[in-house]
């Protein structure tokens, strides 16, 4: 054995680590770290995509002006009742988080998360243009709002559907395996196949939904260009598409719950829905939180559905943040502004990533 080692140089642990780490660190530095900081740098410039491509000096340093032009406005004031519905919910949320924490019903982390969210809900919608004022970018905040609405509909939709399905399909029989496969199938389709299918499904003239409605004598809904239904259309599409992985995660979580708990409950005559409520759900808390946070991160990045199905319309009602960033960069050629918006997106997603990390850690103890 010694002979084998003697003829070649043996690496120390540090050296071996260096060799092993190098490929990743090089790629990481080059394609994530550097671009990230460069993105910040771009956001500080007035940078026209085409102009700079032809003349590298055409960009101009403008400091934080892009951020101001995107997120702020002229004569913006704050009012506690500017957006009453949202702000009142925010106040209730703050109260609830304090109350529930006092009662010990939720963990510290959940209480803090709820509190922070509620404070934001109270503060942010309060900003509005005062007399003679206006937002510099009339579309930015509504776009953020649309994205939030989309997430607010999709995440619960996917989570609840996946949870119920996982609970129903949690048996090792042939039939159940077949069903699981059927429900998971939609997840592996690529986003543009999904938009292709549903674009036609929703078409008032050629769509399956329209065909069925007409047969029963109704008049078809023009889903994708009707402002009442466009958001619903992309939400339905996304729930159909995103069910798979959530369902699998719930199945994994369900399998971790010990059978004895159910047997003990059965002795007390608590089966079916009762068992689900009192045993399954509490034991799934960690998985549920994980699924929710993962889905929020995923759905916040929505792009394909809005870009290909509704084109952000009608009247911007389904315009989402990533699409707005893409259009600002490649349609309006405004790289600086687009980068500023991308930084905003990063801050939000970063916050949720931290949340996911903290939540994941919390239950390990």
């Amino acid at each position, binding site marked *: 054995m*010694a002979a084998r*080692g003697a003829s070649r140089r043996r*690496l120390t*642990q*540090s050296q*071996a*680590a260096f*060799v*092993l*780490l190098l*490929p*990743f*660190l090089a790629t*990481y530095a*080059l*394609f*994530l770290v550097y*671009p*990230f900081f460069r*993105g910040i740098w771009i956001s500080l410039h007035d940078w026209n995509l085409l102009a700079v491509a032809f003349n590298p000096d055409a960009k101009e340093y403008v400091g934080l002006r892009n951020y101001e032009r995107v997120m702020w406005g002229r004569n913006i004031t704050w009012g506690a009742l500017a957006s009453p519905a949202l702000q009142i919910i925010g106040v209730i949320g703050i109260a609830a988080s304090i109350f529930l924490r006092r009662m010990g019903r939720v963990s510290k982390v959940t209480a803090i998360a709820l509190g922070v969210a509620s404070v934001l809900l109270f503060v942010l919608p309060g900003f509005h243009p005062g007399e003679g004022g206006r937002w510099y970018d009339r579309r930015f905040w509504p776009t953020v709002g649309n994205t939030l609405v989309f997430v607010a509909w999709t995440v619960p939709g996917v989570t609840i559907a996946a949870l119920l399905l996982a609970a*129903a399909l949690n048996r090792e*029989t042939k039939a159940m395996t077949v069903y699981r*496969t*059927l*429900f*998971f*199938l939609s997840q*592996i389709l*690529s986003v543009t196949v999904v*938009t*292709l*299918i549903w674009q036609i499904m929703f078409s008032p003239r050629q769509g*399956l939904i329209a*065909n069925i409605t*007409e*047969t029963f004598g109704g008049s078809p809904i023009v889903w994708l260009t009707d402002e009442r239904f466009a958001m619903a259309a992309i939400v339905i599409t996304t729930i*159909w598409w995103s069910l798979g*992985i959530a369902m*699998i*995660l719930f199945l*994994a*979580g369900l*399998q971790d719950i010990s059978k004895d708990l159910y047997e003990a409950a059965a002795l007390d005559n608590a089966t*079916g829905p009762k068992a689900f409520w009192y045993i399954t759900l509490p034991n799934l808390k960690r*998985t549920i939180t*994980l699924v929710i946070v993962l889905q929020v991160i995923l759905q916040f*990045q929505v792009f*394909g559905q809005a870009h*290909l199905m509704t084109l952000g319309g009608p009247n911007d009602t389904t315009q989402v943040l*990533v699409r707005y*960033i*893409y259009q600002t960069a*490649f349609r309006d050629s405004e*790289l600086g502004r*687009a980068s500023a918006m*991308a*930084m905003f997106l*990063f801050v939000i*997603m970063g916050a949720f990533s931290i949340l996911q990390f903290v939540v*994941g850690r919390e239950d390990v103890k």
Partner: protein
Amino acid sequence: MNRGYYWLIIGLAIPAFLWLVPTLWMVSLSFQPNEVLARTTSTTLFGLIPIPFTADNYAALFSFGQTPMWFLNSLIVAVGMTLGVLAVSTTAGYALARLDFPFKNAITVICLIGLMVPEQAVFIPLYTMFADFGWHNSYHALILPRMAVPIGVFLMMQFFKAIPQDIEEAARLDGVTWLQIFWYVMLPLARPAMMTLAILTFLYAWNDYLWPLVSAQRQEFFTITLGLASIQSNFAQSEGLGRVMASGVIASLPVVVMFLIFQRYVVQAMTVGGSKG
């Protein structure tokens, strides 16, 4: 099995069928002639059954369609990205999990902090970077950026941490080098995690729309997502609904088949990944 179970099976049949309907409809439309579809899609049972039937759309796809080329590109990019991610993630993951070296904690934090950065926060600067070097319209442009995302490293790190230390100690006593331990001992053990990572990366690559949209400007580098997107936006100007649907079917078929064959591994992989992640 009790009666409740059978009611469950029956009760689930309807939602399962409904869930399958959109895909079935796409397949059915792909087998109907374009002229008929231009007027109505509802010929037989709302269009769910392909009568009138034709295989022309598929024949057309293979004789002069772009779809096979797009499909091949997606395959190359997905396989390349998967291999690349596996390579960098297993190596870095093991080093961070089990080896000792100066500044280890700092480097770990630096690596993992990248988890917070979404694709959309860097795609614009990446775009300008690649443009400056003239790297767009190439496979490496499509593959490299994702290799920098530390999710793979994180997954492998978690996995390696869970392996008992005795194995390495025994090997070290035998005079095996660290690199040899990694290659001959750890990698084989890591197969389940590697499967998870491979599947997740493959699906991600297959699905990616935003980055290929801005990076691939030449058709010969279009991935299947891009290609399908380019023909679906305006049906009135494309060759017909049937042909477009056939493209969608061809785009999905291999992935579906692959999934059906490997589904046990997929589920296993998700389970392992999910409970460890």
